[in-house]
């Protein structure tokens, strides 16, 4: 049995992609790998939805892309964050933080404690 994997809540994939790309220009495959590694396999990114998401973000102007050679010398499409994308990442992560804190508070509530 593999370790339990969580489905991504709606809309978080975009946020995660933005965060990964914020660390520096990176191609699609690397994004998929990094997401899986960093989350220690908990976050399973369906690769099939990764590319449409990338294209959507590019279309919205949050990401930009260039074709560059990788270390192995092959051409790959490298995504990077635009200014608009950075701003978006900022607001999205803040609101995510607030949301998780709030959800955490509610979940930590001791039963019967609320009057």
């Amino acid at each position, binding site marked *: 049995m593999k370790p339990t994997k969580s489905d991504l809540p709606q809309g978080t994939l975009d946020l995660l992609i933005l965060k990964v790309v914020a660390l520096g220009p990176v*191609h*699609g*495959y690397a994004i*998929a*790998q990094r997401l899986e590694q960093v989350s220690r396999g908990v976050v399973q990114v*369906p*690769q*099939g*939805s990764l*590319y*449409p*998401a990338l*294209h*959507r973000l590019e*279309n919205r102007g949050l990401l930009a892309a260039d*074709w560059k050679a990788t270390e192995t010398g*092959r*051409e*790959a*499409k490298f995504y990077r964050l635009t200014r608009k994308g950075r701003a978006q990442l900022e607001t999205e992560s803040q609101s995510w933080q607030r949301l998780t804190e709030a959800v955490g508070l509610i979940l930590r509530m001791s039963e019967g404690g609320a009057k």
Partner: protein
Amino acid sequence: MTWWRRLWLRKKMEEELEKELRFHLDQHTADLIAQGLDPEEARRRARLALGGQEQVKEQCRDARGTRWLEDLPQDLRYGARMLLKKPGFTLIAILTLSLGIGANTAIFSLVNTALLRPLPVERPEQLVSINNLSLGIPVISFPNYRDFRDRMNSFSGMVAFRVTSLGLSNNGVNERVWGYLATGNYFQVLGVKPALGRFFTPDDDKSPGAHPVAVLTYDCWQKRFAGDPRAIGKTVIVNGRNFTVIGVAPQGFYGSEILYRPEIWFPMMMLAQVEASYNYLEERGNSSFYAQGRLKSGVTAPQAEAELKTIAAQLARDFPNENEGMGVTLSPAGLLGSRMRGPIIGFSAVLMAVVGLVLLLACANLADLLLARATERRKEIAVRLAIGASRWRLVRQLLTESILLSTIGGALGLLLAYWLVDAMMAFKPPISIPLSTELHIDGRVLLFTLIVSTLTGVIFGLAPTLQSTKPDLVPALKDEVSMGGYRRSWLRNGLVVSQVSLSLVLLICAGLAVRGLQRAQSLNPGLTPQNAVEMSFDLTLQGYDVSRAVEFRRRLLEHVRALPGVQYAGLSTFLPLSLIVKNYPILVEGQPEQRGANMPTVTASTATPGLISALGASLLQGRDFTEKDDESTQNFALVNETLARRFWAGQSPLGKRFSLAGPAGPWIEVIGVLQDGKYFSLSEEPTPFVYTNMRQWTGGPLTMVVRTASEPQNAIAAIRREFQQLDARLPVFDVRTLVEHMAIPLFPARVAATLLGSFGLLALLLASIGVFGMMSHAVTQRAREIGIRMALGAQAGAIFKLVVDQGLILTALGLCIGLAVAIAGTRLMSGFLYGVSALDVVTFTGVSLLLSLVALLACYIPARRATKVDPMVALRSE
């Protein structure tokens, strides 16, 4: 990257997408191999992880947001192929659409020219007409104009002008041409720059008779001076006086009226010289000037109107004799004040509504055809849905097809509109006033056509598309003919019902218009058109003085009356129903005196002895003018019944006296009563009318009417020769028989009857195609049911009835709805019904019967076909 670049780079994008995914797969495979998997297995796992490659690509394409545009060429190609596959359907569809869209475009270009296109002046939205409607026409007197102009604050400028005809001699040719008399600030206020020379200014318009200058329209300059720049400074002779040409207006500028095409402008102070008439400039009671003003920026029309109303009230207090009761309204400039606006808007509204209905009808027709076709394409669509095409994708493709159809129809419709516009221009009112003859198909019209075409495509395409993209997949794939799903037949039945009701409404409009024309032709116009001719001439053009003119008149009548076949001849300043009206406030002797705008008004013309007989008007009481009256110092008049009844009800009007020029007289004695006629339009209410005795000549054009024993056409040449003998250089114009003259008042009725009649027939055609198509299709759909019925022993008669009943029920429903709409809507048409009721029973029943008959015929052929269904064939067909 902008979306359109992305569109152009579509091919590159596709390649890159492919490359990106390949890179991903290769990398993943390499990593898996590195983990120790064999290459085959590694590649398999990598593929599995990514998922269906084509699906991923498809989602990426969708993510780009320009998907529909990228698919467009593909959809268009596919659509074109589908249309070409069914040339019959395509041809009918395109023809139907081009008729509908063409009619809309043509009528819209009419509306555009008259109502939407701004005058070619600076900031045309600021320009308004100032209407004083006290005489029933929106004109004011010159002294009142001056007072308004000097007292107002809301306008940056206010102009007055007159539409006038005059005699122009250039290079020895005498002609009657049309022009404007306009105040000196006219061109400044309109904000127009001359093409050549200069315009006149307030300095050229200071004292009466002192400024013999003229400005030409571009067309006049081209026509009369061959576009020669040396025309500036040249002399033209106007009514025998020299005027200097000082400027040429820019091309396409014809002054402050939209539909009027004059040749020349004069300063207002030259009124007496140009019109060779009284100097009206100081007569506060003579309302015969049009006024326009330019609103100051920031001032709204209601504010300005309120201010003018205040000034009007002051003027009414200051000059009660002329101005009491005076009111002022503002209207958009350019249609003779507000005079032509109402009728033009009414007429346009009816026409736009009618062509709109025709287009709706065409849409219903096409929706029906498309539904029929969609049923044939059910299997194709079901297959595509089954293998995973999204519904939206299919809707998009089917809509592309219908918009492709409607765009082709629109393009063809535009060509048709050019032709229709030409045909409509052939309907020129039979008058000599030069009117705009160009109907522009400009950018606004093109935009209208484009929008209408696209909307049409969406309207007729949407319902069939939505319906056909959600078939029950299983029966569709099994090639089962559905037994007429409830919803589907509901939609098609609805379409037939709406077609019948729409065409009923249109046919009723057409029928009413034709009845209106009939009624108009049978109205008593107060004259007998048969066997009479009229000719007009203007002695002013030749510089006649009063004594020469009176002598000319006398000799002309004498010579013409002596011609063989001529019974009567007489002269008048203007004939009834020639679109000219001169209204005067009337003061009746011995009756309480009203003042200003509160005075009753009457229409007045003049007549010589013989005119009444030449016109064929009926004298009910008293006597006609005689030559002897001319020698008397007393003024005499013939009044009509309405006038007699209004002012001397219950008494004999003979011998009673009235004045058309205030209490100072001259007093005019009634010597006869004429039967009522029509004077301005055939639809007018009974109007008080008077002929005064034409004793002295006052200048301006005169019209001679000659009554002959037989066909008057033959007499024309002989009468022209008499003119020639008396003055070879005198231009004679508006030569026509009285029957032709009657075409003027009949013009609106004729236009309405022709246009609405054509649209009505078109509607009938479309509706019969619709009913026929629907019934044929229904028979095909129900072939199996019919086969079963026949196999079970149903007789041909019963089958026939089954089909016809279905058609007739729908027709009856359509008729009921159509009648309800028509009853509510035909009131709009009352303007050209000439007394025919808007709910005319003959029209309503006649049209309903006609439509039922056509529907019956349209059902008959499919019903006959139904009775010929071979049960065995029908049952085996599935």
